[in-house]
């Protein structure tokens, strides 16, 4: 049998016993804790609870209806029409209309949208583009295209985030975000009455809160899965949903493709995998993992300093800045990469990443949704700043699309990483979404009344 890509569940706690499957109970407050901001995509827990997209992805990557019930393409994928689900209400009670969806989409991506124009036509939304958009239904499931109410009946922006999702925003105080069940959710009223998300909580504090019964769902960085196991936490681990990659600017000191290729040959993925990420995830040299394509082994991942030296040909570029997210494992990974590159003759300056600073190299985590491979490649390329359309879905065409892009060496894949969370004994029926985040709207509580 083939290995399946379904969510891999890693039940580490001996306390968890197989109990009879009863139907979920309604009620109670679910308490989650996160290290970052639950509002930031693509892994912000709160956004996907408050907002819905026109489409959504199943955990197996298939595109499913959400706010749109059906869609058709015309003119060789240059025009798409999405028909809205009738009877859906925003949290403020106003109806979901095609005009409201268009207003939201226009704010979500501006010039970087996959389409040239989007407009309401009756109760449907029509997208048009100069280039074909074969993957539009899958792309619309992405975090950046979630639909928010942008203007209320009085013509002003809503005072609080307002969507159509299973939960509505109820308040934020002292680092605690509170969401309340949307009784008229088109997907059905969620099981928990309320979700509280404690923000900016350090991982160790999250684990302590879980063990003391003060939290129900906490984060487990992949590199700390072994520690979680030692502490007998019950962890749920997603498939590989993030690509850790080095983005390389093709202007300035690295405008030479030979230099970029030399740099790509100098990175030591094994050290990152074995030391920094504690053998979690997989080494990556292609955009998509073997499990999605079956051909990832064609991209060699081994470090080759000799070849790097040949490609560099004695050239020594001016010092290169390497941007990274401060704190945590990403900073350690950046330090390790800087060491690799210095060994290959590059001079590297580590710089904390910020929107204002342009760096020659940037260490990034790109979302790797379980979409059909052609859509997953296109989404990755768009996240990396490439406006590309991947139309052909045959393995041979996808291989060549990846090969052509990676041969430019503007993105150096390093590791595929999963997401992981640990749950307390009150949580039942937790599943992860296609992006590896917990689907809290489907969680019910064991001790709910």
């Amino acid at each position: 049998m083939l290995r399946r890509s379904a969510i891999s569940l890693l039940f580490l706690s001996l306390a968890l016993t197989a109990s009879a499957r009863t139907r979920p109970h309604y009620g109670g407050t679910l308490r989650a804790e996160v290290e970052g901001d639950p509002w930031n995509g693509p892994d912000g827990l709160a956004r996907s609870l408050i907002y819905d997209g026109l489409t959504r992805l199943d955990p197996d990557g298939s595109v499913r209806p959400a706010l749109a019930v059906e869609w058709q393409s015309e003119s060789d994928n240059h025009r798409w029409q999405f028909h809205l689900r009738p009877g859906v209400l925003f949290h403020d009670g106003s109806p979901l209309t095609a005009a409201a969806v268009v207003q939201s989409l226009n704010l979500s991506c501006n010039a970087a949208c996959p389409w040239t124009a989007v407009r309401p036509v009756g109760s449907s939304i029509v997208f048009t583009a100069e280039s074909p958009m074969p993957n539009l239904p899958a792309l619309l499931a992405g975090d950046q295209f979630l639909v928010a109410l942008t203007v209320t009946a009085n013509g002003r922006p809503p005072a609080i985030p307002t969507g159509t999702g299973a939960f509505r925003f109820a308040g934020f105080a002292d680092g605690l975000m509170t969401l309340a069940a949307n009784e008229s959710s088109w997907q059905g009223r969620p099981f928990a009455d309320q979700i509280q998300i404690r923000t900016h909580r350090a991982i160790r504090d999250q684990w302590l809160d879980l063990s003391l019964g003060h939290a129900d769902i906490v984060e487990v960085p992949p590199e700390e899965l072994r520690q979680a196991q030692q502490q007998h936490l019950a962890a749920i681990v997603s498939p590989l949903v993030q690509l850790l990659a080095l983005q390389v600017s093709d202007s300035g000191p690295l405008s030479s493709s030979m230099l970029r290729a030399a740099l790509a040959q100098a990175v030591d993925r094994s050290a990152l995998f074995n030391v920094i990420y504690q053998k979690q995830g997989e080494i990556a040299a292609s955009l998509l993992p073997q499990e999605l394509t079956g051909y990832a082994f064609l991209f060699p991942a081994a470090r080759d300093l000799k070849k790097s030296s040949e490609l560099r040909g004695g050239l020594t570029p001016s010092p290169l800045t390497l941007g990274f997210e401060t704190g945590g494992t990403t900073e350690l990974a950046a330090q390790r990469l800087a060491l690799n590159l210095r060994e290959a003759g590059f001079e590297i300056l580590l710089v904390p990443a910020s929107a204002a600073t342009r760096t020659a190299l940037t260490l990034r985590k790109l979302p790797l949704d379980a979409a059909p491979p052609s859509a997953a490649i296109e989404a990755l390329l768009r996240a990396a700043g490439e406006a590309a359309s991947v139309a052909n879905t045959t393995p041979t065409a996808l291989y060549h699309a990846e090969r052509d892009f990676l041969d430019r060496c503007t993105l150096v894949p390093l590791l595929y990483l999963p997401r992981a969370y640990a749950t307390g004994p009150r949580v039942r029926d937790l599943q992860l979404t296609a992006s590896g985040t917990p689907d809290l709207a489907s969680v019910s509580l064991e001790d709910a009344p």
Partner: protein
Amino acid sequence: MKHQIKLIWLIAAVIGVFTPSATAASSPWQEAAADLAAQIASILGPGQAHLTIRNLSAIPTDEIPTIRRLLEQNLKSHSVTASGADSASAIRVTLSENAHNRIWVAEIVEGSETQIAIVDLGPDETPAASPATGLILRRQELLSTREPILAALELPNALIALETEQIVVYAQAAGLWREQQRAPITVLRPQSRDRRGVLIGSANGSTFEAWLPGIRCASSIDPTSQPASWKIQCRATDDPWAVTQPPLDVSSSQPGSASGTVSPIRAFYNATRNYFTGVISPDLGVDLLPFYTLAQLPRPSSTAALLINGIDGKVQLAENGALKFVSGTRDWGSDFAILHSPCGTGVQIVTSSSGEAQSDSLRAYELPALEAIPASAPLAMDGAVTALATAQDLNGVFAVVRTANNRYEVDRVTALCN
């Protein structure tokens, strides 16, 4: 004579080269090998190359020689001969796979240049075996769809699937259920997140009715049309659901009657949640708490006992105007259905319980007194059991299963006496 022998040898050689062996011809790999060989040959052209094969897939190792032989034969038919390691060209074939399909990849190396050929073989479909001990539960898959199925019902000439927004009628053709008609549930309202529905057949098996939260759908059929044409009409209602299946009586002459001669038990459903309120009709004379499941259980000591699974997880038996707790139900899930079989006491309760994290199992129990006794080994299912219902012929149970890859299966579960 010498020429004749040479001719026979030549014919044999040609047959040997251009016709795969009996084993190879019947091999499931023939088409893929031919496709990959053609792609390789179009890149490499006629000549010699060193062929290596490695297996990164779940294909058993003992299949590799067959695959190698097929590749060599097909390459030869394109004038590409597999040669020794000292050849200038090399063909590195990798038998790979992704999460869905088998993928065969050939790297064709000529000097410093490497070109790629890929063949997609499609999915591997290997049926799983089920265990067999004691009274044996068996399952037969009737349907598999991507749309969520809330309930299924088999009528003498149709299989009905209740989806969240449509009712689908399947007709049998060549031993398979094929979609015949699809009717939208025109009255739509927000449903519970744990969606439920019930399908009840008429006593004569000619029609059915469907119940969803706040909605009732009735069916009728035009007996003159071929194939049968169904008319399905839905309306909003707060009426109690029919929750017990009248036994099939094909001699009944009440076309269009949804309930036949035996009145079903009716129960009020909480449309915004996932359970029945506890108010049922006809009144049993006892107060019921909210419950998930109710089934009519034939008992020697009474005419109409009801088995009730409360939302508090307790199973009770309403019998002779009294409500009694049933023990031995700790492993029961929220759903059960009654099965009639020639085994044991003749009546079993089939209930779901969770096995591995993503999969459930079904198990048959008997209830001679007030303690549930296991009557079968657990029957492993392919995912989470989301609904159970007694078949109209009473000799089977329909199980709706949500599989790990989010498909919905309808299985008919029957008992085999050991």
